[in-house]
């Protein structure tokens, strides 16, 4: 479904250059939920931006659904959720969720039906006419997720989508995301700082090294679905996976100077 072949990405500014991604090859199957973790600045987000076609690789090829990704052209039916929610502040919740459908010239009556069923799905009914500033961060992120889901994406790229939320809201959104994925089986690639989150939700966790990044570990998380993203943390398997991942990631943090205390805390 998603294939990265010998990807390298170097940023140049004047005489200096910074190689964010060294040499990454990766294949992600249909309907797989893959998380990518690694030290800050290791090019995790760069990887997503490359898959979405926002930027061009310096070397290598990316294919989504056997189609070569061309820079500047977002592959069709690809959704992207940013850490900072991207809802449009001048549109109401209802108008925001329907934005992609309006882009696709869907008739207004159909848009209304689809939007209303989506809002019901995410318990946002009653908030149709609210503007984003009237919502909490969690509700805004949920609105952004619905905006994406309205377009029926087959690939979902998530760039630390829960990073800015409090832990209670985060767990709720984990449950929602897990449920949506279980029902619709999109291919999901999630970049995160949070190892717990990665293990709780994914089929596979990939650990990247500091820049220039390469893959240090590609670990399958063989915990059966459906999972409850909260209670799964208490299982023995969860602990085993976490320790194995942390064994690799922890060493990498020691090697790179910018591992933060928050990350150390989350895996302790």
């Amino acid at each position, binding site marked *: 479904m998603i294939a990265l072949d010998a990807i390298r990405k170097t940023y140049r500014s004047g005489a200096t250059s910074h190689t964010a991604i060294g040499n990454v090859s990766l294949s992600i199957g249909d309907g797989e939920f893959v998380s990518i973790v690694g030290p800050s600045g290791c090019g995790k987000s760069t990887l997503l931006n490359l898959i979405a076609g*926002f930027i061009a690789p310096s070397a290598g090829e990316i294919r989504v659904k056997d189609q070569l990704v061309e820079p500047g052209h977002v592959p069709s039916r690809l959704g992207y959720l940013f850490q900072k929610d*991207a809802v449009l*502040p001048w549109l109401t919740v209802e108008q925001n969720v329907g934005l992609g459908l309006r*882009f696709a010239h869907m008739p207004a009556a159909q848009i209304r039906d689809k939007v209303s069923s989506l809002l019901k799905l995410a318990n946002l009914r009653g908030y149709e006419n609210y*503007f984003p500033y*009237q919502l*909490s961060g969690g*509700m805004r992120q949920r609105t952004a997720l619905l905006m994406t889901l309205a*377009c029926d994406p087959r690939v979902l790229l998530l760039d630390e989508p829960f990073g800015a939320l409090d832990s209670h809201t985060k767990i709720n959104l984990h449950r929602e995301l897990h449920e*949506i994925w279980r029902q619709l089986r999109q291919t999901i690639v999630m970049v995160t700082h949070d190892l717990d989150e990665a293990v709780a939700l994914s089929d596979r966790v990939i650990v990247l090294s500091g820049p220039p990044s390469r893959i240090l570990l590609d670990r399958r998380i063989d915990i059966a679905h459906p999972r409850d993203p909260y209670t799964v943390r208490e299982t023995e398997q969860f602990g085993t996976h976490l320790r194995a991942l942390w064994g690799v990631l922890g060493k990498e943090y020691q090697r790179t100077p910018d591992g933060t205390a928050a990350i150390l805390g989350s895996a302790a």
Partner: protein
Amino acid sequence: MTISTTASAHVDTAPARQNGLGDQVRIALYQVVLLCVFLGLWEGLTRVPYLVKNTFLDPFFISRPSLIALQLWKWTFGVQAGFLLPHLASTLGATLLGLVVATSTGFLVGLLLSQSPTMAKTLNPFIVSLNSLPRIAMVPLITMVFGLGLLAKVVTAWFVVFFLIFFNTFKGSVSIEKHLLQFCQTLGGTPRQIMWSVRVPSALAWTFAALPNAISFSLVAVVIAEFVGTTRGMGYLIVTALSTLNATEMFAAITVLGLSGIALVAIAERVERRLLRWSPQFNER
């Protein structure tokens, strides 16, 4: 899907509103007191013989509130009833027309230049130098070129207001967050759709935010244009009063201008608030 809705939306509670109303009344009271003190001093001091004789506090120079009120009455309902209105209408008409023309052109040029970094960089020194010109110095030239009528006033207002709107729109359009544009791309938006649904509204927000200032500037520009060459308008009234050394008529005209300014800005703020009702700055105290 099972979810709990974790957030409470902002709700305007009744006590808060009452509190706000109380504040408003209190502030209005302060304003009335301040105005009364100012007018009272003006009225009283211009009646003290010593001050009238030895300082500028002479009704010959600065008139007196009671005389000004009398003059305003004369112009509106008294012996010269109907005298004021055509002048006021002429000034306000030119102000609004200038504002509309300047806002629409400033918005268009701002949006256009924000789309083309090369063009924006090329034109930058020209725009900055035009903006730094003492535009008031151009008023005689504008009058020479566009005649003594409405056109010269509108052109002057445009010249003053255009840059204000242009810079605001430009800034609004280039400061749009990249991830908003990218997100809309993933929702399947074509460049044209993203232009209309993201770039234009984002720039418009900044344009609207400049409206209250723009309307004040427009009024000032029109009055100055009227000083130089015209036979109608509040600026014309002020200049004729000056040439006949009639301080009362001059202050009467200035009072009307001040009140018009307050009314225009209040309207502009109301329009802005309506158009930007999605913005927290107008909804949170």
